[in-house]
């Protein structure tokens, strides 16, 4: 008896699901009196959840600013509020594709804010492209996202191939001649290693040693000893935060301090200084997409420092580079809609390509058809910022020169550190 009832429940459940799917309402046309609807499939859960939630906060901070302070986006002669429809892609590419399709086919949304990883973004763009919907990549920076010839994908982030660029250009001016690279075997770090070697060649800096270590290594003395023997002027370390910590500990134990040290990730994390102490981290540099002390500003968010203040007030913690990336994505949509005076996809796309503005996130100028870089929709002219940790463990922007608030300082020998 029970069995039959349970079977009935399961059948009813399955039937309901099918019904819900089948009777999905046709996509609603844009209502000129209602809010502008934007879709966002972000990773609220799963392995990209930290990054996904950070980007989502950036989107929301922008939406609140537009609705509460501006009263909406100026579209022609009227103001329209914005509404973001969020879905959780669970860091799963299957869900990212599924949700993007849902935003387009069921919710009838024209503008989509993307997820964190480059892979998820490319998968989502395969859905948005043939449907002619604009996808903003709020967290994707790999060159491959923009080398597909997609006409409807945009991102204000600096591409991974340029991560070490501003630091190396500035150091080349200071007469640096040789470089050594220590990197983990993770894919993005290998990309950065390759891009760094290529750039060093262009700048006339000689690569005197490259050492690859497993990402979970806990003893890298062999690799560091080899690099020390090559004695480079600059050491570039490409690895995650723990690898950065291990590298500093190993260099200190060997009493080796190269003139300049650039680490891809660790110095931008507050835990790096907390763990090693400011005396050990002083002088270490790192690339970052954004920093509150950078000399950036626009009329909506104000300066980069104003943005930081707004974020801290709202969320009670310091922003990493990710929330501002999300807000910058959204701000570029707002500027394009205002410029186009319309929410028509083709008009907005054209306006996005024509954008050439300074914002709290830096300059935004999306590349279009036939750009020499071969990238479309990328913010190709925006350099990566480089920060350096000072004696107090604070991050100070040191490159590129026009955004810097201090000069680069060479590393002190270990014996001169307290």
């Amino acid at each position: 008896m029970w069995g039959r009832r349970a079977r009935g429940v399961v059948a009813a459940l399955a039937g309901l699901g099918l019904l819900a799917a089948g009777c999905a309402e046709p996509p609603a046309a844009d209502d000129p009196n209602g809010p502008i609807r934007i879709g966002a499939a972000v990773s609220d859960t799963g392995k990209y959840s930290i990054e996904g939630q950070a980007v989502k906060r950036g989107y929301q901070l922008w939406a609140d600013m537009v609705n509460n302070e501006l009263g909406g986006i100026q579209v022609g002669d009227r103001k329209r509020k914005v509404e973001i429809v969020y879905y959780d892609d669970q860091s799963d590419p299957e869900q990212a594709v599924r949700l993007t399709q849902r935003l387009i086919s069921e919710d009838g949304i024209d503008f989509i804010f993307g997820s964190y990883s480059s892979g998820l973004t490319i998968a989502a763009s395969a859905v948005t492209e043939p449907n002619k919907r604009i996808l903003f990549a709020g967290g994707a920076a790999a060159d491959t996202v923009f080398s597909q010839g997609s006409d409807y994908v945009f991102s204000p982030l600096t591409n991974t191939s340029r991560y070490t660029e501003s630091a190396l250009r500035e150091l080349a001016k200071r007469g640096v001649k040789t470089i050594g690279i220590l990197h983990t075997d993770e894919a993005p770090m290998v990309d950065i290693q390759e891009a760094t070697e290529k750039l060093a060649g262009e700048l006339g800096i000689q690569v005197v040693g490259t050492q690859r270590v497993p990402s979970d290594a806990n003893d890298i003395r062999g690799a560091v000893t080899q690099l020390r023997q090559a004695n480079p002027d600059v050491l570039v370390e490409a690895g995650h935060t723990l690898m950065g910590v291990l590298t500093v500990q190993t260099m200190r134990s060997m009493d080796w301090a190269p003139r300049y040290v650039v680490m891809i990730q660790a110095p931008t994390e507050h835990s790096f200084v907390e763990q090693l102490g400011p005396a050990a981290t002083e002088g270490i540099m790192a690339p970052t997409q954004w920093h509150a002390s950078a000399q950036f500003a626009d009329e909506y968010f104000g300066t980069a420092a104003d943005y930081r203040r707004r974020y801290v007030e709202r969320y009670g913690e310091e922003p990493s580079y990710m929330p501002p990336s999300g807000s910058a994505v959204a701000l570029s949509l707002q500027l394009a809609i205002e410029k186009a005076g319309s929410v028509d996809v083709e008009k907005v796309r054209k306006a996005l390509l024509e954008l050439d503005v300074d914002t709290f996130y830096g300059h935004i100028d999306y590349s279009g058809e036939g750009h020499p870089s071969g990238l479309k929709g990328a913010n190709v002219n925006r350099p990566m910022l480089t920060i350096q940790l000072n004696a107090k463990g604070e991050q100070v922007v040191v490159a590129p020169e026009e955004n810097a608030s201090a000069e680069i300082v060479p590393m002190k020998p270990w014996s001169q550190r307290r």
Partner: protein
Amino acid sequence: MSSGTPTIGTAPHQKAADRLSAAPARGLASSRFADPRLRAGLFAAGLAALLVTPAFGLNNSALLLLSTVFMWIGLTSSWNIISGFTGYVDFGHGVFFGIGGYTAGLLVTHVDMPFWYTVPLAPVAGLVFALLVGYPLLRLRGVYFSIAMLGAFMAMRELALVFRDFTGGSGGIIFKAVIDRTLFYYVFLGIAVAVVLGTVWLRRSQLGSSMLAVRENEIGAEARGINTTAVKLTAFCVSGAITALIGSLWAYQTAFIDPAIMFRDILLINLALMVTLGGLGTVWGPALGATVFILLRETLWGTEGEDFLLFFGVALIVVVLVLPKGIVGSLADRAHLARARRAGKEDGR
């Protein structure tokens, strides 16, 4: 009797195998569903309904949802052949999904082969890999096999990352895909139907009985003359080949693959969840588990947002506690018990 053919089993073995496995596999054979003609009729009606469904103006989102359900029915039912029937729980089954996707991706990029030509080659690649890996690994019993397969899964992901020049590494492979959701609806529907019908047939065949005998008592099965190595390897190869086929189709439909996407942990977790929910080792359980899981995920996550995972976790604990053999397995047990009671009453009369 230790011949090389896995299907051979003499009458006593057969009985032993049947006795060992009768309960879960009789499935929905109770009461009104006992009539095979009725069941076949219901199945045909359901299939006919699904065949004409796209004609009722479903949007691409609904078509994608349904084809995802069909795809998972194919995946769970094929995983069930090795993990449920022979009892060799394969925790690294996603490796075949990845191999299928990369077979298609590499042939399209390096040989310039049109995608649809690669589709028959993906299951061949899965089969070859299953033979190479299965022969040594299927000698391991129980959890050791599960862990070894997990190792194979992770190793292949690393290889796909390391051989950048060949696989594209983390830069991945992009298909210039023309995505037709209606076409994929039918393709995945066809696969789901074929795999489920194949499982029904397998369960009734001697080979299927031998698989269940391996699950219940491998040493005993061997002693009774079943070539257990051949039986296990056959199950593993069939299971792997189907999964590789589905992997290649999914890869194309997603338009982009990289090692983290094709060899993703969540696939392994979802497989285990869906099959546990429906009933491991039953014929219809994996299909039901996949359908319920995906439709719940779809409907609840619309209303519950990120609380879905919490809800689902709790629901799964309840299912495992109340219905330890999954929905289908537990229903079959109850039907079995009811039949036994009825038979007891009749005897008492």
